[in-house]
């Protein structure tokens, strides 16, 4: 075998195979669901969603609970009092947990 033949078989062919596999895995990642996967502890970028069985269950004020624009403003301590007071009066129950 000449040098050029050796190079072709032992370098060019494996290199071509590696490139094909890399390209396929790139395509698979961008098209598949892999990018959406949530892994605890890693930042997860998504649009917030609120599921209801029917839209009329949501009041008009809640629809625009957040003003147009990005983040919700921070509450001052006074506002927390006024907002959470009726909730306390209505005795909501439930549970809290973290993971």
């Amino acid at each position: 075998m000449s040098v050029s033949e050796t190079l072709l078989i032992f370098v060019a062919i494996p290199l071509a195979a590696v490139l094909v596999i890399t390209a396929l895995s790139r395509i698979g990642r961008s098209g598949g669901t892999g990018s959406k996967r949530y892994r605890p502890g890693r930042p997860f970028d998504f649009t917030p969603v609120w599921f209801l069985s029917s839209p009329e269950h949501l009041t008009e004020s809640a629809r625009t609970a957040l003003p147009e624009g990005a983040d919700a403003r921070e509450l001052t301590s006074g506002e927390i009092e006024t907002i959470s007071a009726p909730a306390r009066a209505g005795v909501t129950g439930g549970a809290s947990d973290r993971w």
Partner: protein
Amino acid sequence: MTAGKSVATTDLPESRTAHPAGRPDVLNGPFTTRQLLRIDDALRVADQSTGLIFTVYVGPLDEPIREHAQRLHAGLVDPARAVLIALSPNQRVLEVVTGSEARKRIPDRDARLAALSMVAAFGGGDLAGGIITGLDQLATRAGRAA
């Protein structure tokens, strides 16, 4: 989503128009189409069998987290009969808020139990699975509509 019975509302109204290509905004959320259908189904079954209103919010929650979840809950039309499951994957917190009527059907102890199994699924990275089991558990505990 099936037949428009169920909706997913985003917090930011202007982001709804961000995709003129006809791709619904909810698909930019944390779930795939198949998962969305399963959640939709679980919500509908839970609502119909119990007569309560179940809602699921997935998104950031501001501090204080419990108060934010209660504010979301208070924004529903009939908060007394509503059950809100609010979770923030990035903050890794879960809040279950039950209204005064719903609380009689789902005691806090059972809500805690459902929260525990949801958190177990979330910790494994399975958001949709956790939501569906949680809804199922809460609906089972609430029982049939009177």
